C-alpha cells in the first residue's frame, strides 16, 4: 500500500511543478516503482549472487520452494530464486520448457532438475555442465551405482543425483505364507500358477504392457535380469535382438500366453489399471513403482492392508535382479554465469541432510544409500527404508541423447512382439531402426 502511495506522490509532485518533461516524470515513476518492488529482495540479497533454479513441481508436507528458502537462509553468499515447472505427470511439458530455455544458452535457469531419461539428451546438446571435477570418483561412491550411471554421459558426470524411484515386486504375504519370496522368474511362475489353481487369486502376476513409456521400463527390468541389454554402454551398439534380450521378451509374452499367470489385458494397462486389481485383492504379484505402497495400506482404497510385501524383482538363472530407474536429478546449465554458486547450491541440495529432508517431508527417496540407515528416515518413512535393496538394482533406461526417439521405436516393437508373438522379428526390426537413430 505504502509503495503505491509514494509512487503516486512522486508523479503528482512532478506534474504540479510542471518543470520536468512528461517522459522524464514517467520514467522516474517507473524507476521508483521498480526500485520499491525489488527493494525488499535486494536489501536481503545485497552482495549475494543471484541464481535461478527451475524444477518440476513436487510437494508433500513441504514444497521444493521451502527447501530452497532454507538454503537461502543457511548462508549469505548466494540467493536462489525458485521457478516452478509443471508436475512430473506433465513431463512432456516440463521437457519442452527446459529444452526451450536451455537452447537459448543465456544461462537461465542456472540450475534445473531433469527426468533421468533426458540427461544424455541435455548433455549431448552441450547444455549441461560436466561436474567431474567438483564431484570426483570418491564423491560418486556415495550414491547408488545405477543413478550415477544414468547421470553420466560420454564418460562425464553431467547430472547430480536428487531422488530415486524404481520398479519393484509387490506380493501378497497372506497368499505366500511360508513360501519364500521368489528370486527367479521360474519360482514366481510356479507360485502364481499354484495360487490361481487353488482359487486364492484371480491373477498370478500383473505388469504393464500398454504401448507407453512404462512398457520400456518393464522391458529394461526383464531384459537386464537376464543379463541382456537394449543398448551397449557405448550408446551405439544395439543389443535388443541378442538371444538374452529375445528370451526375456519371450518370457513377457509367455506370462500371458503360456503360463497364463497374466491377463491379456496388461497389453492396454499402464500403472493404475494394473494396480487396481492388486489392491482389490485379486492378484498375487504386481510389478509397479513405490507409490502403490501408500495406496495398498489405505483401508479406504485397498482390501489388502497389512497383507502386502515388497521385494526386488526376480531374475533369470544366471542373471541379477534389475529395477528400472526413475526420478529427477539436478543439472547445472553449461551457460551459467555463476558457476561456483550453482555448484555450491547443487552440492547442498544433494547433500545427505537435504536428501533426508526431501525423504521425510516430500516422500522422495534418497539416492545416497547411507541416508537409508538414518534413524530419522526409519521413524518417518519405514517403508522407504526397506527399499534400499531394491534401489541397489536400479538400472537406467538406454543412455542416449536420442532417447525420445528410441523409446517410441521400443514401445511399438515390444507391443507388437507381445501381441503377435513374433518376438525375434519385432526385435530385429527395432534393432535396425534404433541403429539408424543412434548413429545419425
Amino acid at each position: 500500500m505504502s509503495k503505491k502511495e509514494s509512487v503516486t506522490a512522486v508523479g503528482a509532485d512532478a506534474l504540479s511543478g510542471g518543470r520536468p518533461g512528461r517522459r522524464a516524470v514517467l520514467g522516474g515513476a517507473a524507476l521508483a516503482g521498480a526500485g520499491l518492488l525489488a527493494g525488499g529482495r535486494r536489501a536481503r540479497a545485497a552482495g549475494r549472487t543471484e541464481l535461478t533454479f527451475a524444477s518440476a513441481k513436487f510437494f508433500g508436507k513441504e514444497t521444493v520452494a521451502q527447501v530452497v528458502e532454507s538454503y537461502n537462509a543457511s548462508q549469505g553468499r548466494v540467493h536462489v530464486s525458485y521457478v516452478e515447472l509443471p508436475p512430473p505427470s506433465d513431463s512432456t511439458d516440463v521437457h519442452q520448457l527446459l529444452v526451450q530455455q536451455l537452447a537459448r544458452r543465456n544461462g537461465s535457469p542456472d540450475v534445473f532438475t531433469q527426468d533421468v531419461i533426458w540427461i544424455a539428451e541435455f548433455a549431448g546438446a552441450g547444455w549441461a555442465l560436466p561436474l567431474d571435477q567438483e564431484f570426483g570418483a570418491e564423491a560418486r561412491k556415495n550414491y547408488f551405482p545405477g543413478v550415477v550411471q544414468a547421470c553420466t554421459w560420454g564418460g562425464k558426470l553431467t547430472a547430480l543425483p536428487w531422488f530415486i524411484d524404481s520398479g519393484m515386486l509387490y506380493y501378497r504375504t497372506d497368499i505366500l505364507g511360508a513360501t519364500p519370496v521368489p528370486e527367479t522368474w521360474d519360482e514366481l511362475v510356479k507360485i502364481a500358477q499354484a495360487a490361481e489353481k487353488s482359487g486364492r487369486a484371480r491373477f498370478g502376476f500383473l505388469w504393464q504392457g500398454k504401448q507407453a513409456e512404462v512398457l520400456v521400463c518393464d522391458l529394461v527390468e526383464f531384459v537386464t535380469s537376464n543379463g541382456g541389454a537394449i543398448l551397449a554402454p557405448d550408446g551405439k551398439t544395439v543389443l535388443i535382438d541378442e538371444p538374452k534380450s529375445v528370451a526375456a521378451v519371450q518370457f513377457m509374452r509367455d506370462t500371458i500366453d503360456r503360463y497364463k499367470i497374466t491377463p491379456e489385458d496388461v497389453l492396454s494397462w499402464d500403472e493404475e489399471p494394473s494396480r487396481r486389481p492388486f489392491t482389490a485383492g485379486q492378484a498375487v504379484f504386481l510389478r509397479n513403482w513405490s507409490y502403490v505402497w501408500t495406496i495398498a495400506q489405505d483401508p479406504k482404497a485397498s482390501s489388502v492392508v497389512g497383507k502386502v510385501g515388497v521385494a526386488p524383482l526376480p531374475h533369470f538363472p544366471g542373471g541379477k535382479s534389475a529395477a528400472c530407474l526413475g526420478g529427477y536429478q539436478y543439472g547445472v546449465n553449461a551457460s551459467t554465469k555463476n558457476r561456483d554458486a550453482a555448484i555450491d547450491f547443487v552440492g547442498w541440495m544433494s547433500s545427505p541432510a537435504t536428501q533426508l529432508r526431501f525423504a521425510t517431508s516430500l516422500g522422495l527417496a534418497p539416492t545416497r544409500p547411507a541416508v537409508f540407515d538414518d534413524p530419522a528416515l526409519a521413524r518417518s518413512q519405514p517403508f522407504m527404508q526397506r527399499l534400499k535393496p531394491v534401489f541397489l538394482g536400479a538400472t537406467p533406461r538406454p543412455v542416449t541423447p536420442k532417447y525420445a526417439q528410441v523409446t517410441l521405436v521400443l514401445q511399438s516393437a515390444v507391443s507388437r512382439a507381445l501381441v503377435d508373438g513374433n518376438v525375434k522379428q519385432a526385435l530385429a526390426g527395432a534393432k535396425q531402426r534404433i541403429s539408424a537413430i543412434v548413429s545419425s
Partner: protein
Amino acid sequence: MSRSVAVGGALRRAPLAFPILLRMRIEAAPLLLLVPTAISLGSVSVYPILDGLWLSFRNTTLATRQDRFVGWLNYRLLAGDPDFWRAWRHTLEFTAISTLAETAIGLAMALLLVEWFVGRGLVRAAMLIPWAMPTVVTSKMFGWLFDGQNGLVNWLLRSLHLISRNIDWYGSPHTALPTIIFADVWKTTPFMALLLLAGLQTIPGSLLEAARVDGANAWQSFWRVRLPMLAPVLLIAAMFRALDAFRIFDLVYVLTGGGPADSTEVLSTLTYKTLFSALEFGYGSALSTAMFATEALMALGFGILIVRSMRRQAR
C-alpha cells in the same frame, strides 16, 4: 471536428482537381477497414500455416540443435515411413466409419425428433448430453465400460450368453480401434442429429402434404422429398464431421496411447509424439502438412458434392 470538415471539403472539391486521388481514397477506405481483420487472421491463421510449411522443409530438431534447409528430404522420408502410412490408414478408417455411422444414426434420430410427441423438447435437450461432455471424460468412461476384466460391456455380453469369455477390448489390435470408433459415434451422433434436425425443419410442410395427397407413403416421401431436400445440409454436416474426425486425438491418447502394436496410432497422436516428445519440429511439421493436405482433399471432395447437390436443388 475540424478534420472531418476538411475531408468533406476535399471530397467535394476533388472530382475537379484530383480525380485520381479521389478514386484512390474511395478504394482505399474499405481496404483500410479490412486491415485489422487481415492482420489478426494473418497472424493467428495464415502465418502459422506458412511457418509450419516452411519448417517442414528444414531438419529442425531442438535437442540436437539442427536447423538447416533440407528441401524435400522430410517428405521423401515420409513417403517411405511405414509408421506414417499405417497412421494415415487408421485415420482414414476411423474417419470414414465414424462419419458414416454418425450420419446414418444421426439422420434416424433427427427423423424421429422432427415428429411431434409428448416430451419432445426434453428429449431434444437430453440428446445433447453426450456431445456436451468433455472428450477426456468420455474417454475415461469408455475406458471403464469396455474394461477387459471388470467392464460393464463384458458383463452384459456374458450375462446374455453372447460371449463365453471376456473380450480384451483395448488390449487386442482387432478390437481396439473399433471400440474407439464406437465411443466416438456415441459421443458425436447427437451433434449430427442436431444439424440434420435443423435441416429437416427447413423443408416446407406443404411439400410433404402434397406428397401425401399424391398417395406417397412415409418411405416414399422420405426418399423422394425429404432426403433430396436435405442433401446439401447432410453433406455439409458430414463434411464438418469428417474433417473433425480426421483430427481424432483425445480418445486415442487417453484410451490406448496408440497401441497395442500401433493398431490405434492415428496421425494426430503420431504427430504429437514426433513434435512434442521427440521435439523433431521439421519432420513433425511435414507430418502435419501431410495431414493438412489430406484434409484439404477431403474438403475439396465434399465441396464438389455440396455444390452439385445445391445446383440440383436449384433446378
